[in-house]
């Protein structure tokens, strides 16, 4: 739940014990939900139903990403998916063009897609493209096929600020500032922005220390509010002075990142591994080892492979975050 998504009637009138804490808090603080709860009259609804028919939509899809592959994309703190068509990608990130079924508001920077492609009329909002982490690509649901080259042409023109390619299936141009489709663009921009956050967050930081500090400040969380990591350790961590790999247990670091609403990803794994290497300190020699050394009995040195240790630590943190 957030400012722009209120619960359905099913949730609004469900028994209190069936609601999540988040939903309860929303309803308690939302004037719209409070007004409806006070004035609407919930009654019995029927659950029985006769069979309904529909047309199957058969298609063969492989799992490989390709230009124009349409994915459902998940975002942080949202129970709605974004549909997006791939226009560029590598092992960590993908640039996608949001796909919307609100074709009524199509402009000349929206590529109109045939109903056969997804099972309904849709448009690719080229003006609204953004970057997501590959981990956000949840499921491939379609291919644009011959529309893919049109998408690429429109996307390239948008990037270069070039003239609109001719003969593409797009909507009417926007000719004035009072065109109501401008307001639709604002609304769509806001709806999709949450999906770009994970990639933008990681793209904007040099290392995981900066990530922790900036995200904590963004969420306005005091160090004491971050639970498992004590405030002084957190200060050291943010300053890059704490031996992350040896001083912060995997579960604690994973919990910290979850609380900071950071999405698990390959890019994050790399940042964590780099942080572990950068702050790694050789453990002090233990008392028995020192005694052996005094007696002249030396075991062969077993140098720790820092890179391997760091990679292992980072992988475990990501696994823990995903668990």
């Amino acid at each position, binding site marked *: 739940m957030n400012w722009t998504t209120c619960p359905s009637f099913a949730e609004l009138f469900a028994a209190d014990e069936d609601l999540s804490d988040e939903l309860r808090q929303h309803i308690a603080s939302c004037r719209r939900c409070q*007004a409806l709860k006070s004035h*609407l009259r919930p009654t019995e609804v029927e659950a029985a139903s006769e069979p309904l028919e529909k047309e199957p*939509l058969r298609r063969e899809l492989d799992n490989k990403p390709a230009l124009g592959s349409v994915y459902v994309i998940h975002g942080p703190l949202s129970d709605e998916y974004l549909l997006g068509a791939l226009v560029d990608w590598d092992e960590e990130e993908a640039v996608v063009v949001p796909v919307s079924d609100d074709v009524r508001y199509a402009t000349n920077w929206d590529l109109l897609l045939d109903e056969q492609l997804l099972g309904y009329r849709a448009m690719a909002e080229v003006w609204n493209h953004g970057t997501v982490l590959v981990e956000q690509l949840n499921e491939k649901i379609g291919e644009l096929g011959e529309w893919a080259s049109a998408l690429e042409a429109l996307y390239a023109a948008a990037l270069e600020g070039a003239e609109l390619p001719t003969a593409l299936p797009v909507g009417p141009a926007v000719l004035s500032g009072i065109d109501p489709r401008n307001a639709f663009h604002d609304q769509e921009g806001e709806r999709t922005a949450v999906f770009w956050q994970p990639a933008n967050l990681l793209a904007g930081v040099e290392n995981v220390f900066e990530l922790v500090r900036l995200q904590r400040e963004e969420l306005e969380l005091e160090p004491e509010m971050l639970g498992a990591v004590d405030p002084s350790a957190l200060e050291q961590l943010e300053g890059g002075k704490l031996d992350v790999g040896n001083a912060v247990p995997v579960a604690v670091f994973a919990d910290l990142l979850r609380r900071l609403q950071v999405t698990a990803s390959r890019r994050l794994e790399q940042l964590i591994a780099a942080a572990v290497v950068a702050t790694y300190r050789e453990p002090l020699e233990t008392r028995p080892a020192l005694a052996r050394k005094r007696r002249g009995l030396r075991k062969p040195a077993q140098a720790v492979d820092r890179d391997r240790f760091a990679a292992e630590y980072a992988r475990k943190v990501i696994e823990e975050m995903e668990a």
Partner: protein
Amino acid sequence: MTNEEFRDIRRRYRESAELDPRLASELRQIASRLVRFGGLPSAYAPYRVWNQEAEEEVFQSWYAGRLVKTGQLQALLDRAATIEAFRRLGERSLRQHVLNQRERSQAQNLYSRTAELLADDDDFAVFVGAPRPQDVWWGLATWTNPPQFSGSEDGLYAAAWSLGEFEIIRYRADAKKLAPVLAAAELKRFVAGLLEAVAALLTLSLLARTFEQRFDLGAVQLDSLDADESPEVAAEEAPDPLELEQATLAIVAELNQRQADVLLGTDADETQDAMADRLGCAVGTIINEQRRIGSTIDRHAESSDQRGTLLRKVLDLLHEGGERP
């Protein structure tokens, strides 16, 4: 239905030829809740009364006409990650369907009104005659030697969108006399604005297609314009208090938390800057939300006067939910 069940249904939906009974049941419950809890005013019921038949009629119209025919069920499933999100999006889809049905049913009347406007208003004139009324070329009376419009339809639609927002009035489906979708002054503003924007003569056929595209209306039977019939105009009737209550609740149900807060803030003369600060968003977002609230109220108002009444009632209802900001 659990989220696990929902994900299973969602995964298998595309290939199956029959709707999963659990999904069918869920859709019926969405419609049933919206109708029986009071989320849809009875003025929107096929015969102005919600009963089992009316509920079934609306459900079938939504299911066959929107969810299956235009693939919107697939679109809902594609977008919903949880059953909660599916129910929320489903309710929104049904509300839009019911409102759109009313708008589309009034399209024919709008074209008749346009024909009458062009013929009766001295600000418009015929420049090129034609045997059929829909092929006559109309322009502004002040023009001399204007060209006939020869641009693309997209160009015409772009010009229509460039004119900005128009106040759309919805009348009851059972009103003894139908009324135009656009109020008289708004209709003239639109037609004159479009002629000025394209700086060329237009026919009723072109205007009809522009109406369809810009206002998402149903297709018109242009032949009917041959008939010598005056467009129907709504009879003035005092609003039914119960229907006003129902429309008020329907408007509140369509708002979200931020819109409710913006409306209350606006009513309390809070500045847009202060609201943006309080709600943690940009001033532009506040302005857009104010515009969306206005559109939502417009969609339920049956006259300009009723708009103000509904706004007041919505505010009263929201104030009851807590203290003023």
